């Protein structure tokens, strides 16, 4: 079977980006970091190419980290393997509505 790959940019990251097509709920992807370490994660949700999954549980209100930096706040509790995008990640910048 073709390898389903996800990449984690920085050690501090709690999300990884999937670079594979046709990932649906229940599939397993191999999350690799820059050192080549691999971690198998079961995906929860259908995740398009280039989109993110959580690699650990993230409580509501906690920071979502990519590139070792905050990219937003979890608007709901997120569990390991869950699809992370605008439905459960809130941007904190340039917001006139906050």
């Amino acid at each position, binding site marked *: 079977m073709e390898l389903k790959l996800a990449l984690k*940019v920085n050690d501090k990251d709690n999300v990884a980006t999937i670079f594979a097509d046709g990932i649906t709920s229940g599939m397993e992807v191999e999350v690799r970091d820059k050192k080549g370490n691999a971690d198998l994660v079961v995906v929860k949700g259908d995740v398009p190419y280039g989109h993110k999954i959580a690699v650990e549980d993230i409580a509501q209100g906690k920071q979502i980290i990519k590139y070792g930096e905050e990219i937003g706040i979890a608007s709901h509790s997120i569990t390991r393997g869950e699809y992370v995008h605008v439905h459960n990640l809130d941007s904190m910048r340039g917001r006139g509505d906050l």
Partner: protein
Amino acid sequence: MEFMGYVRPDGKVGSRNYVAVIPSVTCANDVAQAICHHVQGTITYLHHQGCCQMPPDLDRVTDTLISLGLSPNVAAVLIVSLGCEGTDHARMYRELSASGKPVEIIHIQEMGGVSKAIQQGTDIARRLAVKVSGIQREKVDISKVIMAIKCGASDTTSGMASNCVIGYVADKLVDLGATVVFGETTEFLGGEHLLAKRAVNDTVAKEIFRIVDEMEKRAMSIGCDMRKGQPTPGNIAGGLSSIEEKSLGAIVKSGTRPIQGVLAYPQHVTNQKGLWIKDTPGREPEILTGMAATGAQFMMFSTGLGAPQGFPSMPVIKICGNPHTYQRMEDDMDLNAGLIITGEKTIEEVGEEAFDKMVRVLNGEMTKNEAIQYFSAIDIHCLGPVI
């Protein structure tokens, strides 16, 4: 290391040798376009500014048009003025002439209308085109390079592949004594602290925070959630969830070298070397104009979803980070950085390919958008209202 360029009277070196037909106001666009239609080797800037604006914006438009004319890719200038515009066409003529380039000006109202202006303007442009066509390329040091960089129609591959390639080229050019300019102030939001750490001193760090703060306040003054504006719907479809994520991926293209300072939007590079920021928005028509006004001989442009735009007087090298997009849009993409995502090539390998392509483009090789002339949608970024 050297390249073959056109040495201008002010010492700057171009990669192209155009006659720029510059409308001093949007009302002169049709005349400028008609002249260019008839004369080989000419380009124009079909912007929408230059009248019924607040004085700071009129100065900004005048200064930007002067800087475009001063670009080393421009050999001679024909200014097309209507006659009653708000921009200072007399200052444009004066400051461009001072550069030593051949500069001419026509006024549509004074000449008796559109057809007469097109006729006389075509005559002048033809004379200028013949005059500059004999200028030969000369061997010059690579430190004469001014590279502009930008990412557009980004997705999550941009920050992991194509922007890394541009960062590699940016570092290499800075180390060779050249100048690199990046912008897109909106896409510093969430990453400004990382840029400020690279500032050469506290003043520059404060400048970085200031331009980001001003940009964020302009966005917040509308009183709504910025998303759907930034990141764009296309960015979101490509997997980018917030402006912070987009920014952190975007700043990767600036490489790792110290940031020397912040240039204002209309400003052109005189003798600044190393890595600089230009305060620009992210949208293509305005940032490409601002970057060409810098005096950049070319731009390196990273994309994930496939942005095809170029600029009339500045070749734009497209580096695509998404392997699927590259396959679909190979006709518009100059380099495939998607091979980094698939693990077939390293950042250094694609970085060296990009550097080689850059040298060939500086020497005269066309980029894909240049060959297909996909570059008429340009504009000048203004801050105040149209009045």
